[in-house]
């Protein structure tokens, strides 16, 4: 039995479901040529973003990745504003200047998705200097994929966080593939968690398909960070249901792998099965959330499609704060 109350469980399910439907819908919109550019979908990894962010308030900060939609939704970013941003619309969360890989919402403590693998962890470390100096117990989370664990910037950030004893949690989402290359090939150490321990911080390795596993491990790291005991790491083993980017033919994956994962490793199914089995939520309650989420995503797509593009006058605004 989980200690989480009904409201918390419904909220967690709603956030995971919102991410899933947001991404599945984007997949369709992209296939129909509605959205330009590179999009990296988070479907399959929802339990990680939500299990982590359910411990955070708007004053806690996260640095995200190129596969950032899930982190945004989990952190409370407005879904309609996100959809408009991905559509490149004037009133998107970043006024259409960022796009899928550069969504940020500072009111929600979302410091930005990041199109550079390994770009975010140094930023999270610095943000942690700010929260530490403010002395209010707020923390920062650095999200990264398995690919990011091989970047020098990430090594530098982890070491600095340990040296300065910063309130940072490094979350690594191992979805099996660094772009088109398997983790078993690209990560030379036994796993990511053991590498993090080598930097001098505790690291847990959890089943990233299971919200409760992620939530519990994150809880321990959060207590440590908020009480000034320094950084921790979390390695979450998970899977992605789509390619590295939309349009990726995924020739590196065995036939049937995705289907098998959708059947047996779907974090939403795993969550639903458990809460229904334990009697904390009913199938009807979950179905009601599903309907609300689908309506929200429909509305987001409708509003995004109807919204105007940015004015050409905006081309050279906001390069600087002052000129």
């Amino acid at each position, binding site marked *: 039995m989980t200690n989480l109350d009904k409201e918390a469980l419904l909220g967690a399910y709603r956030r995971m479901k919102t991410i899933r439907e947001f991404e599945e819908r984007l997949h369709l919109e992209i296939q129909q040529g509605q959205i330009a550019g590179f999009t990296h979908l988070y479907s399959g990894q929802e339990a990680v973003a939500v299990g982590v962010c359910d411990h955070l308030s708007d004053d806690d900060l996260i640095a995200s990745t190129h596969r950032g939609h899930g982190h945004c939704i989990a952190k409370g970013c407005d879904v309609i504003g996100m959809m408009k941003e991905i559509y490149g619309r004037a009133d998107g969360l970043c006024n259409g200047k960022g796009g899928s890989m550069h969504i940020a919402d500072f009111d929600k403590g979302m410091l930005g998705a990041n199109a550079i693998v390994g770009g975010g962890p140094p930023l999270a470390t610095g943000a942690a200097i700010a929260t530490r100096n403010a002395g209010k117990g707020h923390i920062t989370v650095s999200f990264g994929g398995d690919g990011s664990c091989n970047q020098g910037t990430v090594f530098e950030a982890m070491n600095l966080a340990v*040296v300065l004893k910063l309130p940072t949690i490094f979350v690594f989402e191992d979805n099996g593939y660094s772009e088109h290359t398997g983790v078993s090939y690209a990560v030379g150490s036994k796993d990511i968690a053991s590498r993090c321990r080598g930097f001098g911080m505790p690291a847990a390795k959890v089943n990233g398909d299971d919200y409760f596993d992620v939530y519990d491990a994150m809880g321990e790291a959060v207590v440590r960070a908020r009480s000034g005991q320094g950084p921790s790491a979390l390695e979450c083993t998970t899977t992605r249901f789509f390619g590295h980017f939309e349009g990726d033919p995924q020739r590196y994956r065995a036939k049937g792998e995705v289907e098998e994962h959708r059947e047996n490793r779907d974090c939403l199914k795993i969550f639903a099965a458990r809460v229904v089995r334990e009697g904390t939520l009913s199938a009807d309650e979950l179905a009601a959330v599903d309907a609300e989420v689908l309506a929200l995503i429909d509305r987001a797509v409708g509003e995004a499609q109807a919204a105007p593009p940015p004015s050409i006058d905006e081309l050279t605004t906001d*390069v600087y704060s002052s000129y």
Partner: protein
Amino acid sequence: MTETTFRQALNDALFEEMRRDDRVIILGEDVSGGAGGSSGERDASGGIFGVSKGLIFEFGEDRVIDTPISESAIIGAGAGAALAGLRPISEIMFADFVGVCMDQIYNQAAKFRYMFGGKASCPLVIRTAMGAGMNMGAQHSQTIYPILTGVPGLKIVVPSNAADAKGLLKTAIRDDDPVVFFEHKALYNRKAEVPEGEHLVPFGEAAMPREGDDCTVIAIGRMVVFAEKAIDGLSESGISCDLIDPRTLSPLDTETIFESLEHTGRLVIVDESPPRCSAASDIAGIVASEAFGSLRAPIKLVTAPHAPVPFARELERAYMPGPGDIAAAIEEVVRG
């Protein structure tokens, strides 16, 4: 006015701004120095050139942060702290090391404001020492400001004297955009009169330390010192020059340059960097496309050669533009 070294002027600016605003922090390799050393002495270096000397004792370890040798983390942590409300000064010991952390400068800090639709600001100052003349070889001697001047979102400051160093650093710390502040190593011990009290120098306003009629000379950083020498030496032969010190390469005060050219009609640009895609060639391009009508002679560039900075004294002396090179260039454009 007080006679102060370039180093002391920068140190004064840091003390003043850190006292004024407790959001200002400084981080970098050995900004204090001595942490973990066997002597137990803190502030063992105070910055490798002594610019941040004494800060640790007044502001403590939360605001004066000695980092590991991790340039990407130094810039990234500065940029992240800036996004989260601080006003960090990240020190990169030698400008050459920018190569190690370029992503955090030009993909991260420089682009936040634009990418995030104007909803972010990144008040980060990157202080870094640059320049040849001390036999430090190819990887500790470059003047790499041209590489960063072309990056939208960054402001680029290259002071030539102690007064400007102080006033520009204070402005940089108060500015809401990422600023890269280049300090020429050969200037640290140079003294100049620095105004007493609060002294701020705005960005985008060139200084004109010499005024004349025959030629406009634009010089950057330490080259201003050499250009002054060259121009003063030419006064006996009846040649007088406007000398423009842009002080900030981005934003660039083109107005002062164009006004001067209307008067003199001739232009010499002096830059310690190699000539291709340099500050000199950049300014020459702007003048050629926007003020060609003012020119009565071809623009002359005085730069280092297209080569890395050499080690041997004789070679390094030949590498650096000197007062003689500048005087010869001025005479060439004036006498035709």
